[in-house]
C-alpha cells in the first residue's frame, strides 16, 4: 500500500521540491489518499484521538515547565501558583492533569479494540509491539509526572514504586540508591523525574512516528479482520476518515471538557493537596486509576519480588501476544466462544482496578465475615485480586493459544465489500443457525 504513490506535483515549486525532498508526496500519500478500509467503526477513531492527546500533553506541558519549580520546598506551591496567579494557569494545569487520564482512557479503548479485532496478528506484529512500547513509555511518563506536584500521594507513590527495584536480589538496593540520587526520595529524585518527564513524551512522539509508519505498510485492519482485496474495499483517508475522526475527537473533547471545567479533581486524590511529608505516610497509598490493575497484581502475592515480576510480566505478556494467539481468524466477530472469554477479560481488568483501589484486607462483600484461606480472608480484596490476576495471565497464556486450536470459527466474509456477511446482524443470524459449532 505504501508502494505506489498517486501524488502529482501541481506547480513548478512542487515539482522542484519533489525531486529533492518529497515531503508533499509523503504527506499526500499518508494523510490524503491513503487507502483505508471503508468499514472502520468508531472504535477505530481512537488513534486520531491519541495523537491529539499527545500533542495536547506536550503543548500544555511545555507551558507548565515555564512556571514549575522542581525543588522539594517549592514544587507544591509552584503548582498552586500556576493555578492561582499564572494567566489561564488553571486551564493549562487542568488540561494537563486531566489530560493524562483522558490519554490513558483513550489508549485502553484503543488496546481493547485491537484485542477484539485481532489487529496484532500477522502482518501487524511490529505495529502492535511499537504500540506496547508507547504504552510502556506512557506509564513511565505518567508516573514521573504524578510525582512533580509533590503532594503526599506523589511522594509516597514515588517511594513505593522506586522501592520495587529494591526487590531485585543483591544489586537492588544499590540500583535504588543510584536512581534516587541519594538515600531517600528527595530533591535529586524530584529533579531527575522532572527531567525524564520532559524527555519521555518526545520519545513517545518518535515511536508514534514508527507506529504510524508500521501501520501504513500493511494498512489498517478492520472489523471483519479480512484483508483488503480491491479498491472497492477502501476509501481515501481524506475526507472520509478525517471527518469521521474529527467528529469522534470533538465528542471526546466534550468528555475531556466536563472533567477540566466541572470535575477538575474528581480523578485525583485529596491527599495530593497536602504537601509531601516524608514523616507522615497516608493511610492508603494508591496510584492513579489507570495503573490500579497493575497495582492489584503487584499486591496479589505475598512475596515482593514475585509481585514485581508478575506486574512487569503482565505488561511483558502483551509484547509476545502475536505469537501466543494460534487462531488464523482475526476478528472476534467470527469467534463466538473466544468472544465470551474476551468480555470476561475486559470485566476482569475492571475488577483488578477495583482491587487496586481497595486495601488488600478490605472485605469485598461488607458484612460477610467469610473464611480465612491461607494468609487472608476469602472475602477480601487480596483474594479477589489473586483470582483476577490468575485470569489475566490465563487469558493470554492458556485460553488464547488453546481456543485458537480447538474452537470452530464462523465463516468469515470473502471481502470487506461482501455486504451481507460483513454485517454484524447477519453474523449473529449465522451463529444462531449453527449452534453445534459453539464451543
Amino acid at each position: 500500500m505504501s508502494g505506489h504513490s498517486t501524488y502529482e506535483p501541481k506547480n513548478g515549486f512542487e515539482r522542484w521540491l519533489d525531486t529533492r525532498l518529497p515531503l508533499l508526496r509523503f504527506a499526500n500519500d499518508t494523510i490524503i489518499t491513503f487507502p483505508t478500509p471503508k468499514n472502520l467503526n468508531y472504535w477505530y477513531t481512537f488513534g486520531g484521538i491519541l495523537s491529539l492527546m499527545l500533542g495536547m500533553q506536550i503543548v500544555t506541558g511545555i507551558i507548565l515547565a515555564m512556571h514549575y519549580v522542581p525543588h522539594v520546598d517549592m514544587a507544591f506551591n509552584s503548582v498552586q501558583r500556576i493555578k492561582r496567579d499564572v494567566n489561564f494557569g488553571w486551564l493549562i494545569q487542568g488540561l494537563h492533569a486531566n489530560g493524562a487520564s483522558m490519554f490513558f482512557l483513550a489508549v485502553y479503548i484503543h488496546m481493547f479494540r485491537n484485542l477484539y479485532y485481532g489487529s496484532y496478528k500477522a502482518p501487524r506484529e511490529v505495529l502492535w509491539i511499537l504500540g506496547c512500547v508507547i504504552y510502556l513509555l506512557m506509564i513511565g511518563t505518567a508516573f514521573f509526572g504524578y510525582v512533580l506536584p509533590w503532594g503526599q500521594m506523589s511522594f509516597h507513590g514515588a517511594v513505593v514504586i522506586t522501592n520495587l527495584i529494591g526487590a531485585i536480589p543483591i544489586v537492588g538496593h544499590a540500583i535504588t540508591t543510584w536512581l534516587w540520587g541519594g538515600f531517600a526520595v528527595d530533591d535529586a529524585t524530584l529533579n531527575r523525574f522532572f527531567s525524564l518527564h520532559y524527555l519521555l513524551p518526545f520519545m513517545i512522539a518518535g515511536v508514534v512516528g514508527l507506529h504510524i509508519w508500521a501501520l501504513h505498510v500493511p494498512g489498517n485492519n478492520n472489523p471483519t479482520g479480512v484483508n483488503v482485496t480491491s479498491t472497492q474495499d477502501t476509501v481515501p483517508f481524506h475526507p472520509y476518515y478525517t471527518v469521521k475522526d474529527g467528529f469522534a475527537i470533538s465528542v471526546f473533547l466534550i468528555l475531556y471538557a466536563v472533567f477540566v471545567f466541572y470535575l477538575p479533581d474528581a480523578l485525583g486524590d485529596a491527599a495530593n493537596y497536602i504537601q509531601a511529608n516524608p514523616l507522615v505516610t497516608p493511610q492508603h497509598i494508591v496510584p492513579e486509576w489507570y495503573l490500579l490493575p497493575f497495582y492489584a497484581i503487584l499486591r496479589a502475592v505475598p512475596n515482593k519480588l514475585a509481585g514485581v515480576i508478575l506486574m512487569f510480566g503482565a505488561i511483558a505478556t502483551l509484547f509476545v501476544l502475536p505469537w501466543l494467539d494460534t487462531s488464523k481468524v482475526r476478528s472476534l466477530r467470527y469467534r463466538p466462544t473466544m468472544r465470551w472469554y474476551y468480555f470476561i477479560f475486559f470485566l476482569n481488568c475492571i475488577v483488578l482496578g477495583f482491587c487496586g483501589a481497595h486495601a488488600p484486607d478490605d472485605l469485598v462483600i461488607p458484612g460477610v465475615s467469610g473464611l480465612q484461606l491461607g494468609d487472608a480472608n476469602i472475602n477480601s480484596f487480596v483474594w479477589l485480586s489473586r483470582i483476577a490476576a490468575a485470569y489475566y495471565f490465563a487469558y493470554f497464556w492458556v485460553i488464547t493459544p488453546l481456543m485458537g486450536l480447538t474452537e470452530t470459527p464462523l465463516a468469515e466474509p470473502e471481502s470487506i465489500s461482501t455486504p451481507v456477511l460483513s454485517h454484524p446482524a447477519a453474523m449473529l443470524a449465522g451463529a444462531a443457525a449453527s449452534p453445534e459449532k459453539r464451543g
Partner: protein
Amino acid sequence: MLRKGFALAALGLALLAGPLFAGQALAATTEAEPKDVHWSFEGPLGKFDKAQVQRGYKVYREVCSSCHSMNLMYYRNLAQKGGPFFDPKYAENPNDSPVVKSLAHDIQIKDIDSDTGDAISRPGMPSDRFANPFPNEPAARASNGGALPPDLSVMAKAREGGPAYVYSILTGYTAPPKGMTVPAGKYYNPYMPGDMSSFMAKGMKVPEGGFISMPPPLVDGKVTFDDGTKSTLQNQARDVAAFLAWAADPKAEERKTFGFGAMIYLLIFSVLLYFSYKRIWKNVAH
C-alpha cells in the same frame, strides 16, 4: 460454563477451608460521613455567595488565624475577580481596593527594616501574604501541645468531602461516648479519621471517628457578623467552610464560566462535524 466452573471452584475452596472459619474484626481507621450541606457554589453553574465568603473571612480572621496559616493567600486575592471583596472599579489591580487596603492595614506583618536590617512589624498591604501566626513549625507545635495546626490554603480540597468535611469537623464535637479514655489535650470528633479501638473499655462498641488536637474553636456568638446574620455555631462553620472552599479554588467561577462557553462551542462543532460526516459518507456503502 466458565462461570459455573468458577462457582464450583469457589465452593470447593469454601468446603476445604471451612474449619478455618474466623470472623475476626479488623482494626481500621473510620470516620463518619460528612454532613450533607447545601452550597451556593455546587454544580456547573454554582457561584460563591460573596456575603457568605466575606463572613467566612471574618471567622478565619478572628478565630482560625490565631493558629492556622494560609500561605498561598495574599490580601489582594480577596479583591480579585471572583473574590469576596471584588469591586469592578479595581478589577485592573486589586491591590488598589480600599476595602482590602484597610483589611490588610489592621494586621501586623513581620518584616525587616530595609535601612537597618532590624526585625520590625509594620501594617499589612494588599500585596502581603496572609500573616503566619507562628514564626516556624516548632513554635507552632510548642503553642499547641505538640500538634501542628495545618495550613488552610487548600484545606477544602485536601480532605475527602471538602467543605462539608470542614463544616462537619467544626460542628461535630460531641461528648466522648461511655467507656472512652480521652488523652489529655485531645478531643473526640466522629468526623475526624481515626481508630478508637485501643481507647475503648473492653467489650464496648468502637465508635466511628478519632481524636483531634484542636479544641472546639467555634461557639454561638463568637463572631459578630456585620450583615446581621445570626452568629450561631452552624452559621459560623458554614461560612468559614465556604471561605475555605473559595480560597482553595479561587478560579472556580472563571473556570465554570469559561467552561460553559467551551461546552456550547464543542456541542455545535460536534453537530456540524456529524452532519459533514453523514454527507461525505452518503454514497459509500459501509
